[in-house]
């Protein structure tokens, strides 16, 4: 029996693995992992290992990819705590901006859109979590419920620091890597940036 096609089929496996290793985006890598699973199931079946092929297709391709997709989706996220009022205001501004262009000063919605583009370069999602007042916002940051907070400066704050007039918002983060990322990006006209350390004792679970 002439089985020369087997060599060609087996050569597909390292090809798919090579494509998988050069992926940068985690979601793209998941899809390519599915392709690798399909190709390896083919190779196993052609080489006569039907049980291994079945296991690869059921566990390796279906279950593992679904679980990894859930894990990647819930871990690659930047949770930004905001005040309830500014979130409502941002949604209204967004609706207004659609039909008239009178929004002269750059609004909260613009800041959120800027942040979203910046973190999406690092394959992160931006999740806005509303809190009723600044105290609970700070508490949530300390309790590690959120990664960063973004609040509007109060009027007395602006009076005490003269140069803050050009920066209507104040962002605080407890993740050093996020601080580095946001520092290098051109957010400066919109918000000032701060880094604080949250104590580890709060995390017991």
């Amino acid at each position: 029996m002439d089985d020369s096609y087997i060599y060609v089929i087996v050569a597909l496996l390292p090809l798919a693995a090579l494509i998988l290793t050069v992926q940068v985006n985690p979601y793209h890598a998941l899809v390519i992992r599915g392709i690798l699973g399909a190709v390896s199931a083919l190779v196993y079946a052609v080489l006569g290992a039907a049980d291994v092929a079945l296991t690869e297709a059921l566990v390796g391709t279906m279950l593992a990819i679904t679980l990894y997709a859930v894990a990647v989706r819930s871990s690659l996220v930047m949770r930004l705590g905001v005040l309830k009022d500014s979130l409502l205001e941002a949604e209204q501004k967004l609706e207004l901006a659609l039909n008239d262009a009178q929004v002269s000063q750059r609004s909260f919605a613009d800041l959120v859109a800027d942040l979203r583009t910046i973190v999406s370069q690092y394959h992160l999602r931006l999740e806005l979590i509303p809190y009723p007042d600044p105290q609970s916002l700070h508490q949530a940051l300390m309790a590690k419920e959120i990664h960063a907070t973004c609040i509007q400066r109060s009027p007395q704050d602006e009076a005490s620091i003269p140069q803050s007039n050009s920066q209507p918002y104040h962002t605080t983060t407890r993740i050093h890597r996020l601080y580095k990322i946001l520092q290098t990006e051109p957010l400066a006209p919109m918000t000032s940036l701060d880094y604080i350390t949250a104590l580890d004792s709060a995390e017991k679970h």
Partner: protein
Amino acid sequence: MNLVLIIMILALLIPIYEAWQDDDIWQKMLAFASIATKTSVMILVVSVLRDDWMIGVVGVIILSVGNAGLMLLAHIIKRMGEL
């Protein structure tokens, strides 16, 4: 009959190239669907060539289950785009 399989392998290389080059996640998903179906049809062809029912049953199961996994992954990616 080997010629048929060689042609199918060459056809399999087209979606692999597409999955490698295209940056759109939905294009990659399309290529994944294409590859999953092509590989299971190739398993079926091999099983018929060898007259091996064990491989044939595995090919049928992979053909149906691969699509189910694709649907699950597509739903999660779609939810990611909405949020």
